[in-house]
């Protein structure tokens, strides 16, 4: 188990290196003078421009800028925002809690919808419920998350007037209420794919010989489905759910923007719109690192669920 974790941790190094390099050069190879961009259209003396270049190290050669940037990064320093004159790290850490809450709530909602739905539709194949679940999965996978958001706003905020449609509330219970609709939106989008995978994994498990044996022994249908089949269907379900958790963060960007939540995603999008490069770099790399760590967590979880992974090499 420890070996599995260590080898997986080692593979993170080249991955993070690749991502940081790509993001750095992408942002620095663009035409135009970043110092001028920072001041916008404002008039500025050449001396002041020079000062800005010095302050943001834009006067150094590119490889040197890169080296200094990586070394800062390793010390947890993500640079300063061009627009807000604040540390990028502070900006990210301020916005992080709301994004994390949104992601965790949505993830729980998606599993709460997808796993029971997938199990029931596999156990009662071709029933009306199975057909309904299939249609739900297909539509959910085809609807952009921001359109699902708009539909839910129309229903729950405008028609029924149950839930607020914008903002993150004033902390505590109010914040929770404000997060319900965004989380439901993202949860439904994710549930679409997980339902499909749960169903097909369960169908596969239910057609195995040991299920026949269990039936022949006269075990109750419920116990066969939940104990024998589900345990064997768990690996594909965890795989997809884990991958989903990573993509959840990207979905969160869109959902935050739609509901005006002001999380990490909104920070990134606003930075892209005004070309605040240090923030774009910092937020992208931060999200990337989060994403990679979650994938690592999923890999380790396999080892817990499936002993074969722990002992043998993975294909």
């Amino acid at each position, binding site marked *: 188990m420890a070996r599995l974790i260590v080898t997986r941790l080692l593979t993170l190094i080249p*991955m993070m290196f*690749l*991502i940081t390099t790509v993001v750095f050069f992408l942002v620095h190879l663009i035409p135009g003078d970043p110092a001028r961009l920072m001041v916008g259209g404002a008039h500025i003396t050449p001396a002041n421009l020079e000062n800005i270049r010095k302050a943001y190290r834009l006067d150094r050669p590119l490889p040197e800028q890169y080296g200094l940037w990586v070394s800062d990064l390793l010390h947890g320093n993500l640079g300063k925002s061009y627009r807000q004159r604040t540390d990028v790290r502070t900006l990210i850490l301020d916005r992080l809690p709301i994004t994390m809450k949104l992601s965790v709530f949505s993830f729980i909602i998606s599993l709460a919808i997808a796993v029971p739905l997938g199990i029931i539709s596999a156990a009662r194949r071709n029933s009306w419920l199975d057909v309904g679940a299939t249609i739900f999965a297909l539509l959910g996978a085809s609807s*952009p998350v921001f359109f699902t958001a*708009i539909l839910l706003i129309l229903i729950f905020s*405008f028609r029924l007037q149950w839930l607020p449609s914008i903002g993150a509330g004033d902390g505590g219970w109010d914040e929770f209420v404000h997060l319900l609709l965004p989380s439901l939106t993202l949860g439904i989008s994710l549930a679409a794919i997980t339902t499909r995978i749960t169903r097909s994994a369960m169908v596969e498990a239910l057609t195995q010989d040991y299920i026949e044996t269990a039936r022949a022994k006269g075990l109750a249908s419920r116990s066969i489905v939940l104990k024998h089949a589900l345990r064997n269907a768990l690996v594909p379900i965890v795989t997809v759910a884990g991958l989903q958790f990573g993509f959840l*963060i990207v979905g969160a960007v869109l959902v935050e*923007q739609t509901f005006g939540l002001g999380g990490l995603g909104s920070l990134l999008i606003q930075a892209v*719109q005004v070309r605040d490069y240090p923030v774009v770099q910092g937020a992208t790399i931060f999200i990337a690192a989060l994403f*990679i760590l979650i994938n690592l967590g999923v890999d380790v979880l396999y080892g817990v669920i499936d002993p074969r992974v722990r002992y043998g090499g993975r294909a």
Partner: protein
Amino acid sequence: MAVEAAQAGLNAPAEATPSSWSMFFWRLRRNPKAMIGGGIVAMLLFVAVFANLLAPKDPTIGELSDSLAPPGQSYLLGADKSGRDVLSRLIFGTRSAVGGALLVVLISELIGVPLGIWAAYRGGVLDEAVTRFWDMLLAFPPLLLAFAVVAAFGPGLFKSALALGILYVPFTARVARSVTLVQKEMTYTEAARAMGYGHGRIVFRHILPNCLSPVIVVSSLDIAYAMLDLAALSFLGLGVQPPLPDWGTMLAEGQQVLLTAPHVALSSGLAIVLAVLGFNLLGDGLRDVLDPRQGQR
């Protein structure tokens, strides 16, 4: 999803003999998913090509006095905030939606297919290195990197399609590679080699044709993903720029007037769902047809 599709293709009839083609169409006609999806896709292509004949009004010029007019006689699907005809904008929006997504997938195929075949055919260290590299990229949501690209090069349909196309390369390359790995070991490839045929002939005559069907299946599903990604970029104001008609930007504009004129957001959102659904169904259907074993599930 791409992997399943690739596996599906591996079992597909390889040579395009007349009998296997007619068999393919016979099975295709009996597959409801493929037929519905194919119908939607055909309709989208038709609308995109003949948009200027089908649209009742100019999609970029509006009557301010008709701002947010509800669906009715003069505006079948109503008017938007600037008094522009929503139906005409939807019709013209098909072009950027379908065209953009096709461009994304075309770019990823033009780079990915040769790259995948090359890596698998040469094998060894090179294959290892290339595969490792794209495995890293695969672990990543393309949209996230697309944000960084837009930050660097500015918004626009062509730029975002180009960026997404490059970010989709690993998905296509992986499929081409897995097919090539199998075909390389086939007896007929060995025979071709024994007969002294060059690498070029082996690749073009034997390996490339076998890549086609799995690549087509994956493409259809990738077009659906590309549509969603492009719509997301436009929705965020990073893709197609106003006043050009596009479903993603229409949805963003519609959200601002959601309370008073929900028809703008609803019609553009439903257009996206329908289009993505069409390509998803077609891809699923094609996979069922090319791999009956999976289709029975």
